[in-house]
């Protein structure tokens, strides 16, 4: 058994260099350090061999959700408004003693309003080869998502798992020249977990993701007499401008990742979870279907490490601690020559702590603190723009969990975050009109101080022989001391209703 353990360990080390992932937090204002109040191992690990740690019950979950955001403090290519609708069915089922199956099926609709120029869906992945036209307006994407996870405990101390995700959608820009798009994502995960001792579980997983995006500019009947200007970006400045009505852009995105997890649970009062996640993603842009021509190559290497612990000191007192470190490094290559167009690096690290205390049978309170820092560096050689910034984040969280009755539970949470730039440097010269007029403010965006407030409510009710959950989450973000985003704010509401029922 010892030998098997070493074999796995060696394999783990060997595969580190082949593995990949995603998570390029280009839009760093999206990052948050919300202190944990619990450790959700399956959700964190995304390893189907850890499906036995999933907290969901053997129920059918029917969920409908809606989110809306209105953002004035944004980068130029961020849409001003986003509406997202989702109807989701999920369920979990144990098959015998050793097997678990969990599946998700979902319809979703994404609407981006006042979206400038770009029609690449994952426009903020760090890939500089963006594509679009000179129009601004609404675009919508209607998609179907499917996810299945299978777990099998092959021996008393080891399990395997496999996961498959599939997503397709179709996009349409509603303003002329009305380009359309199609997306197809497939992700396959294979995991293995092993418990050398009763209180330790080691898990590894490999993941392959394949995405394809196709964008079509065709002759739009309403624009027969209208001149169409297409933008092909290779950096933050100097887009290639083409006046033509038809064009096809294909983006191939591949992601290869590897993860390793350690779960240490010596007793019911202590849990430790640690995870490394390393990966590489690559984006290859091409044009024209019949005779594809290269439009650029972008590669991003990333590494994520996190540790989390949960300690029940008494029956009333619980603490959660977590640490996260994330780094990524991306670079873009010229489509025709062996030269570097740009490099970008980011680094994120943070620590959070939370105390939960059960005041009485009905009331539970928690209080948490978090601290993090973010570094972002962009060397856009093509555009002659260099940018480096470092910022810090302090977060404060407090929440209540209140049982009105045995069948009604209310959870509330308030999070306040302060993002403060610590230092920044920038350099640009001989810049073009597109950078100076539109995209220069994107650099300012990264070094603008802002506060974020998040207030959430969640009500759980035992009703109709099942459980109904109503949840609302409100975000408010306000930049401070900004001459560009003066008196503006971002607001975001996420809400969902979920019905959980035992039907099998």
């Amino acid at each position, binding site marked *: 058994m010892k030998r098997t353990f070493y074999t796995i360990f060696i394999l783990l080390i060997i595969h580190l260099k*082949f593995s990949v992932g995603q998570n390029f937090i280009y839009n760093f204002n999206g990052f948050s350090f919300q202190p944990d109040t619990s450790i959700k191992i399956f959700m964190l690990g995304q390893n189907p061999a850890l499906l036995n740690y999933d907290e969901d019950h053997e129920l059918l979950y029917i969920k409908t959700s809606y989110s809306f955001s209105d953002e004035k403090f944004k980068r130029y290519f961020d849409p001003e408004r986003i509406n997202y609708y989702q109807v989701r069915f999920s369920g979990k089922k144990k098959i015998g003693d050793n097997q678990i199956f969990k599946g998700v099926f979902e319809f979703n609709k994404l609407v981006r309003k006042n979206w400038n120029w770009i029609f690449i869906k994952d426009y903020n992945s760090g890939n500089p080869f963006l594509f679009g036209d000179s129009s601004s307006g609404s675009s919508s994407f209607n998609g179907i998502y499917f996810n299945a996870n299978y777990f099998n405990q*092959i021996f008393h101390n080891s399990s395997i798992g496999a996961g498959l995700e599939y997503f397709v959608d179709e996009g349409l820009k509603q303003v002329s020249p009305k380009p359309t798009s199609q997306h197809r994502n497939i992700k396959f995960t294979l995991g293995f977990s092993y418990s050398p001792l009763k209180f330790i579980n080691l898990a590894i997983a490999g993941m392959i993701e394949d995405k394809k995006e196709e964008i079509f500019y065709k002759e739009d009947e309403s624009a027969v007499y209208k001149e169409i200007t297409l933008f092909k970006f290779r950096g933050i400045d100097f887009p290639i401008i083409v006046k033509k009505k038809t064009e096809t852009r294909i983006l191939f995105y591949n992601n*290869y990742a590897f993860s390793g997890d350690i779960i240490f649970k010596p007793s019911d009062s202590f849990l430790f979870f640690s995870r490394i996640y390393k990966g590489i993603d*690559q984006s290859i842009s091409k044009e024209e279907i019949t005779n594809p021509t290269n439009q650029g190559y972008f590669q991003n290497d990333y590494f994520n490490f996190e540790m989390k612990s949960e300690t029940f000191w008494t029956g009333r007192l619980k603490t959660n601690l977590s640490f996260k470190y994330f780094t990524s490094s991306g670079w873009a290559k010229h489509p025709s*020559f062996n030269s570097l167009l740009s490099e970008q690096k980011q680094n994120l690290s943070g620590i959070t702590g939370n105390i939960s205390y059960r005041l009485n049978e009905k009331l539970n309170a928690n209080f948490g603190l978090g601290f993090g820092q973010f570094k972002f560096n962009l060397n856009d050689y093509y555009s002659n723009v260099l940018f480096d910034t470092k910022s810090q984040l302090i977060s404060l969280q407090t929440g209540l969990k209140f049982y009105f009755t045995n069948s009604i539970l209310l959870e509330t949470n308030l999070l306040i975050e302060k993002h403060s730039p610590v230092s920044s440097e920038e350099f640009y010269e001989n810049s073009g009109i597109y950078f100076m007029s539109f995209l220069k403010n994107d650099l300012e965006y990264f070094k603008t101080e802002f506060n974020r407030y998040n207030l959430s409510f969640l009500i759980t009710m035992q009703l109709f022989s099942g459980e109904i959950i109503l949840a609302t989450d409100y975000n408010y973000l306000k930049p401070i001391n900004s001459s560009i985003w003066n008196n503006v704010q971002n607001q975001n509401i996420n809400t969902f209703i979920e019905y959980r029922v035992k039907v099998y």
Partner: protein
Amino acid sequence: MKRLVLKIGILLFSISLFSCSSLVDFEDKPISAERKQVFKIRFIDQSGYMQTLYGSDAVRDAQVLLKSNLLNEEFNLRTDTNGVVEISGIVSDKYMVSASRQMNPDEMELITGYKIYNHKLLNTKVKLIELRADLSETIEIPMDVVIGGSPIVISEIYACGPPGSGLYWHDKYMEVYNQTDSIVYLDGIIVAVVYASSYLGQNYVDDPEFVHSKSVWMFPGNGTDYPLYPGEFAVCAADAIDHRVNAPNSVDLSNVKFEFYKDDAPDIDNPLVPNMIKIYQSAGNDWLIGGEQGAIVIAKMPVDSLQWFGDQLLIPYRYVLDGVEYLKDPMKLENKILNHSIDGGGTGGIQFYTGKSMERIALNVEGRMVLKDDNNSSMDFVVIPRPTPEFHHSNPKKRK
């Protein structure tokens, strides 16, 4: 048994992970970064003039214009005594090169013993180069002697059709201009539309000798019937009528100098405008050029010398006076159909029914208008918002 199953499991898992690497085609991170390379271009005289004058084949004091294909950035440079221009801080791209070294009469006297005017060195062979950050070698461009230039050039092509009038496209025309300070006779000059078919996979851009055409027309006259005076334009219209009657945003071509009239088809004929002579046009009811892309050449040659190649006529390059190509996407020079020796680039980028036209850039040479003719329409032409038949947009007062 248990151990065996476990080992098989591990093996399968390992294979699945290893197979990732075989599926993956990761590229190596380039070492050279954009805008960091110092590019060197050396111009070499092949005529022996520079060797005679300076003991070296380096072309010194040549004016060099570089124009990037994708970003349209232009850089004016001058060669040093080693015939080299250096440029840095620019992006990798295909660059159009126009290099010119005017030989002054004193230099020509030293070379030939006579004060000769109008001799210059031009880069006739290499007009398109790649400047790439990953290569540091000096690029060498040969230069040859050119005596004078073409007396007549294609000065404008209007092909896309007017805005706001449906699919109206009958107002197409091409225009020629007399560059010289003396009369030029148009009689017998050939106008040919360059043939290529992406559908049939036929593209003769690399033909070393001939322009291929399925549409060959000729100016009328017996030698001295149709003079074109210095600085004068002549439009050859598909239909020489006032198109504003049919399409309000179009143009009046009723008074132009020539009209293409296809007598074997229901074509419009303005009796007041002399007709071009159709030598061969295999299809269509009128003289036809592409609305968004195409190429036209003018040539001076005996019609009898035209050769057949299947259903195409061949025009030897040596007879070509001028040629212009326009592309749907002028950045995609790989789609060219006209040989680089005639036109090293491509103008255009005009969409159907926008009323835009392509016109040669005007230069002021010794007080008269000379149109830019570096045999590279990427650099010689501009897109203008409206057609300008028989006048230049820079000088609308000269309009008739």
